[in-house]
């Protein structure tokens, strides 16, 4: 008989690292990369509390406390951009997050391998196009003299101002982002599906389960942990909202509808007199909110019974009785 007990692993961190030093050695390049490119540059965050002087450098620039933040919160455009970013990204979770899962489930049902690979390639290809190219295509297709309005005119309809309508702007963001990135994200779910034990499918087929039932009761639960991790990461990124996409698609008419936090930072940093300290303050604020959202999503997922991003340090061990 087998019982599972949760027991504390009493050995110290150092002794555990030494014991598995070969395995830890493998993650060393990753750790170094993170230290150099993610942690060391964090000293630049101090700019949020300074007045940046290029000739004095980041360390030499004078401290000004929370003055930059005072100004940030005085600007109504900042708070508007925060809410706009959140709304746009909540929409992304609703309309974009499920799409690659759906694609992966459907693709998994295809039996002809060659056809499956061809479709997968076609879905993945747009990921490699830059937003500059995609937006050029979009503008040329959707402008008043473009392909789509040409077809509408041929059919006797009135042309639609797709590019300047703030009501259409958000759906346009979701559709184009789905077109561009769903195929790429789908690969992650497809990989998770291939990890599901095939015996489960065989048993289900023997029991007479339909394909829809197999998808519902075997495939979906099998990739649940992947979906949860992806969801947590998406929530943790709620304050970043696809700068490349919005920068290239928005225009003067949709400038307000598209002024997400990243666009706001871009505007105050590069479209007026440069103020790097001010933009650092906004960026720091964004990072803190993102981090809080990440922790929040992780807790909610755990509360709902999923494992979350940071599994418990308590180790599950099997004890033979």
């Amino acid at each position: 008989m087998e019982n599972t007990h949760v027991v504390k692993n009493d050995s110290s961190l150092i002794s555990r690292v030494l014991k598995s030093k070969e395995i830890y050695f493998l993650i060393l390049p990753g750790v170094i990369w993170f230290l150099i490119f993610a942690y060391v540059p964090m000293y630049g965050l101090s700019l949020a509390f300074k007045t940046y002087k290029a000739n004095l450098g980041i360390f030499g620039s004078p401290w000004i406390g929370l003055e930059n933040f005072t100004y940030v919160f005085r600007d109504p455009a900042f708070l508007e951009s925060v809410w706009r970013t959140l709304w746009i990204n909540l929409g992304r979770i609703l309309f974009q997050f499920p799409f690659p899962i759906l694609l992966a489930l459907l693709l998994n049902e295809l039996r002809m391998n060659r056809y499956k690979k061809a479709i997968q390639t076609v879905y993945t290809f747009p990921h490699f196009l830059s937003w500059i190219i995609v937006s050029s295509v979009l503008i040329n297709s959707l402008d008043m003299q473009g392909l789509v309005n040409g077809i509408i005119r041929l059919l006797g309809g009135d042309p639609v101002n797709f590019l300047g309508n703030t009501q259409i702007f958000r759906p346009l963001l979701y559709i184009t982002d789905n077109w561009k990135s769903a195929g790429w994200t789908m690969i992650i779910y497809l990989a998770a599906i291939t990890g599901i034990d095939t015996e489960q499918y065989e048993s289900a087929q023997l029991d007479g389960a339909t394909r829809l039932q197999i998808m519902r009761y075997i495939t979906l639960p099998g990739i649940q942990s992947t979906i949860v991790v992806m969801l947590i990461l998406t929530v943790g990124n709620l304050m970043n909202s696809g700068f490349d996409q919005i920068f290239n698609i928005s225009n003067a008419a949709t400038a307000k509808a598209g002024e997400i936090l990243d666009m706001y930072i871009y505007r105050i940093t590069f479209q007026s007199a440069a103020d790097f300290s001010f933009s650092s303050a906004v960026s720091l604020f964004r990072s803190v909110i993102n981090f809080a959202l990440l922790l929040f999503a992780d807790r909610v997922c755990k509360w709902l019974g999923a494992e979350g991003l940071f599994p418990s340090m308590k180790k599950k061990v099997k004890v033979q009785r």
Partner: protein
Amino acid sequence: MNKLAKSLSLVLITAMMMFVFTACSDNTKNESNSPSVTPSSESNSTPAPQASDGDNDGNWKPQTDLSKKVKFSYASVQGIEGFDYTKGDPLAQYYSEKFNYEMDVAALNWDNWSERLRIWINSGDMPDVAVYNYNHADAASFVEQGLIKRFPDDWKTRWPNVAAVFDKTSIGPQMEQTFGGTYFIPRARFMNNLPGDPLPNHPSLFLRKDWAEAVGFPIKTTYTTSEVMEFAQLIKEQDPGNAGNKLIPIAENTTHAVDLFVARNSTHFNKFYKDTDGTYKWGGASEDTLKGLKLFSEAYRSGLMSQDFYTVKNEEHGSFFNVQGIAGATFFQAPTSALQQFYDDFQANIGTDPYDNIQMATVLGDDGNYHQYDLINYWGAIIFSPNIKDEVFERYMDILDYNATLEGNTILNMGIENVDWAYESDGTTVKSLYDQAKEGKPLGGATGKYPSMGYLLGSTILFDDFAFDNPNTTKSLRDLSKQLYTERTQVATPDSFAKVDWELFAYDSPSFRRAQMDYYTEYANIVTQSGDIEENWRKWVDSKMSIIQPVLDELNSTLGN
């Protein structure tokens, strides 16, 4: 399930393939045909344009030993990406051999010019030499932080021709006084042919004269904004050019649309200003700005402009007029030096005589006055990296000094002596030897004989000064351009065409820097919103007051009465 999956996949694949196909296809609808090869000159000789009062011609001597080759990096807008500005054409070669240099050019475009230079300068990575889109708030910050080179105190005596141009710009000496030294060499729009003080800007209305005559619209050289809209309405109703559903009565992009409607009615639409009562006010909140916005909104909502004018990039709207022939009018760039090309393109693409079918005009506010804030006699300033080697700095100053002489300025504008132009026997008159019909291409420009021709080869005097006398441009066009400049100074009051307020120009503070905004995008956004235009404008003004009011308070307490 399999069938459903297959059907869905097919639909999605078809949609994706359509996008990819569109992505890979050429967008040729706005491409220009090759420029016209019509002879452009009515008179092929002209009195030699004068450059600065300093040394010129054979008397000019460099300040440095030219025997040692120097290399330098250079950044400017309007460069040709990938072109070899050292040896790419005979003109570039002439300069690089004469001054023994190798130049590595970073060609910036209108969209990234200011921001990329700003990043380079702030990060200490600026090229040796750059043409900077002068913005006082940034400039003050650069100077304060030592991010650009301060000129040696004796530079004016060493390079007197550059110094003469510097004095003529008026902003040069002013900023020298403000910063306590020279950091910028503004480039003069005009050296000897200054058409007015305050200086009017060049953008003008290009109107289809043949269409105007067909709809019975009067031909004039000045129109109010409302008259332009009346013309557009007639064109929209009668479509005399049979453009069909492609017709755009007034073709604009965001910048020129705001220029045509808002700036032509509101002198201070994009700045702070001192009102007649001595207090400082914000142009965004002025009634004149509202008046301009109302006209803009009316034109947009009544279909006199393209419904997605704000998607027009790279000033493509000019080509709707002179290449595609689907626009009744366009308010567009009209520097004298570019008019010939604009007219030649019209002839080549539309197939009718541009001199008979284009009417150029000045646009006035609805009060009948020309509205503008002093352009100030400069455009862009030359700056140097603080890390530039002395020998490179001195060599480049030599180039600038030479090009400010009569000989240098003529070569820069007309090509190589005795190949493209020559002096008449009197030694003071220049005649053109360039025959565009024979050469089959224009003298300058990306497809021209000398793609390098222009200020990238080092100039402190811009083209329009020389263009007034350049025999390569049809005389009637030059005369028309002069007339438009002159009229603008005459159809104005001191309030509607305001002189620069140097105290305000040189003002700088953190609040002032943070109150800068892209007025063109802001106004276009207000106009394209649904709802009442006045209400939209008031909401916008209210939303900006938190960053505007601190500046007004500062200005009124430090500079106000």
